[in-house]
């Protein structure tokens, strides 16, 4: 049964993970995600789960690795500097094809940066982040409601593809309080993202070799050709994810003269700009990727058939814009279009008026 609650993004997300069947949380304190470990430390004992405050983010992600090895649903959360430390473990999970959910409540960087919201981990999130030839599925919610729903879906996606899934929240979303409908997990399985798709049994899990031969989980593939064929297998899986699971929301004018492109908190602010532009008689649409990887290239390319002016809004210094350019270039030469960037890095927040103003300039 669904339940309506008024909750902070970080806490709602943590509860969504528990609803999704996650009983193993490993974390380390870092702002602005501290509500997550605090919530989990209180809730996990109530549901016979395990909360463990690890000695570092490095240890926390490797504990997620260890739990995943046994076939259970496990997660960790952190914020940007901590996510950098987790990249080692994420690479190993990708190599070993272990499912798991990693939440990044993004803050400003580089370095210690600031604790203000930012989107500057876009490249790190969408380009693998750690060493080697791999991909993580990256989900980018823009409201607390969507954060809750995508958190539940993230565990299904991770299990379905045997792949780590990254949720890109940010300081705004994590700290914001909104009323949320907590979905019924079984309902969500039936009607949500993976509706109609069976989750494969975890026959690979290590629980002791009872009634079967001993099993092995590894990413070291030293025999000639072994790693190449493994990486080709991974590439096939990634191609299937790109084909089946790229998602975007497109709203606004069906025949736009300008397309705003934004994800996460920036997209939420761009929605405000859309209203302003509409009131001013400007035909504008918003392209909001829900998956940053796989990038919803087709959805954006279709918009590029109609529009040749684009305003990319991001709380980073021109990272997301590269994927917008690549997608638009599927349809049109970049010489024929105008793709402008409204970047607010380091904790700056693009307000709807500012976005609408820039959109008018791009059209001028």
């Amino acid at each position, binding site marked *: 049964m669904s339940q309506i609650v008024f909750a902070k993004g970080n806490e709602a997300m943590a509860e969504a993970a528990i609803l999704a069947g996650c009983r*193993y949380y*490993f974390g380390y304190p870092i702002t602005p995600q501290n509500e997550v470990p605090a919530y989990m430390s209180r809730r996990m004992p109530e549901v016979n789960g*395990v909360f*463990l405050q*690890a*000695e*570092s983010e*490095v*240890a*926390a992600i*490797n*504990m*997620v*690795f*260890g*739990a995943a*090895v*046994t076939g*259970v649903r*496990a997660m960790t959360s952190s914020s940007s500097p901590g996510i950098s430390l987790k990249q*080692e*473990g994420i690479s*190993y999970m990708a190599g*070993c094809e272990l499912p798991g959910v990693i939440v990044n409540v993004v803050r400003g960087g580089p370095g210690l940066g600031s604790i203000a919201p930012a989107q500057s981990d876009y490249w790190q999130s969408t380009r693998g982040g750690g060493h080697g030839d791999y991909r993580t599925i990256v989900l980018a919610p823009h409201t607390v409601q969507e954060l809750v729903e995508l958190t539940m879906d993230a565990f299904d996606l991770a299990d379905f593809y045997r792949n780590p899934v990254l949720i890109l929240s940010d300081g705004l979303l994590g700290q914001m309080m909104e009323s949320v409908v907590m979905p019924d997990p079984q309902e969500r399985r039936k009607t949500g993202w993976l509706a109609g798709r069976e989750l494969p049994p975890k026959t690979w899990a*290590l*629980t*002791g*070799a*009872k*009634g079967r031969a*001993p*099993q*092995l*989980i*590894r*990413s*070291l593939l030293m025999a000639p050709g072994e790693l190449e064929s493994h990486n080709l297998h991974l590439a096939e899986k990634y191609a299937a994810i790109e084909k089946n699971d790229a998602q975007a929301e497109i709203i606004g004018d069906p025949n736009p003269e300008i397309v705003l492109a934004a994800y996460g908190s920036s997209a939420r602010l761009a929605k405000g700009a859309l209203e302003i532009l509409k009131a001013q008689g400007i035909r504008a649409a918003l392209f909001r990727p829900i998956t940053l990887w796989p990038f919803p290239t087709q959805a954006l390319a279709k918009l590029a058939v109609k529009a040749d002016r684009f305003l990319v809004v991001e709380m980073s210094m021109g990272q997301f814009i590269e994927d917008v350019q690549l997608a638009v270039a599927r349809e049109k030469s970049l010489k024929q279009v105008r793709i402008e960037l409204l970047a607010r890095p380091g904790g700056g927040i693009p307000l709807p008026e500012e976005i609408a103003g820039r959109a008018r300039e791009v059209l001028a």
Partner: protein
Amino acid sequence: MSEKIIFTRTEGLKPAATTYCPGCGHGVAHRILAEAVAEAKALERTVAVAPVGCAVYGYDYWNFDTTEAAHGRTPAVATAIKRVLPDRLVICYQGDGDMASIGMAEIVHAANRGEKFTVIFINNANYGMTGGQMAPTTLIGQKTATTPYGRTSEEAGYPMKMAEFLAQLPGVKYAARGALHKPGLIRTAKSYIKRAFEIQEAKAGFSIVELLSICPANWGLSPLESVQKLEELMLPIYPLGLIKDEGPKKEGA
């Protein structure tokens, strides 16, 4: 003429020949570990974690479930496995670099939390797999690939005595140091592993067995010369024996 089988391969090991260098201690360590698992009747409920280092290939020989782990993160991986599966026998196999260098934070905190798994720590005073570089366990004066003039305490500090170091933590209920270069010592080392398993099965706390091992290929010595060096130079720094046993009393003891 009737035949009587007086010795067989332990069912704890797969029928495979190891690829370790001549004289290397890993083969012996694997065997006594596998025998101890088999004697604990735990082959079907063991999950082991293999380190980054020569022994990553342990899973080619051990006849039980095994996962790899990132370098040094072995105790973090084992921590989660044991937390999820508290009734399984969880074994963490580590080398000098894995435990005493890159994985120092993970081992100290797992030990301090009293995680209920057993660590087998192979101390051969250098990094084996990467070609014999200095490890935190390298002896003063020892020449390695990265201490061509011999390790000095001024530049590189002192050999880390991991078993004694960890034994200070209240979460550690068992710590012992054995060696693998003489039959009698091998028997004693195996008895340490068996006792460590008892402590784990009793859910008493963390257990570690450090095993001194030779690494002839990287030491640049014959196996026999390596044994002599171990006795001459390692034993004074790394004394053998039981360091701590705070587990439940043995039956009949």
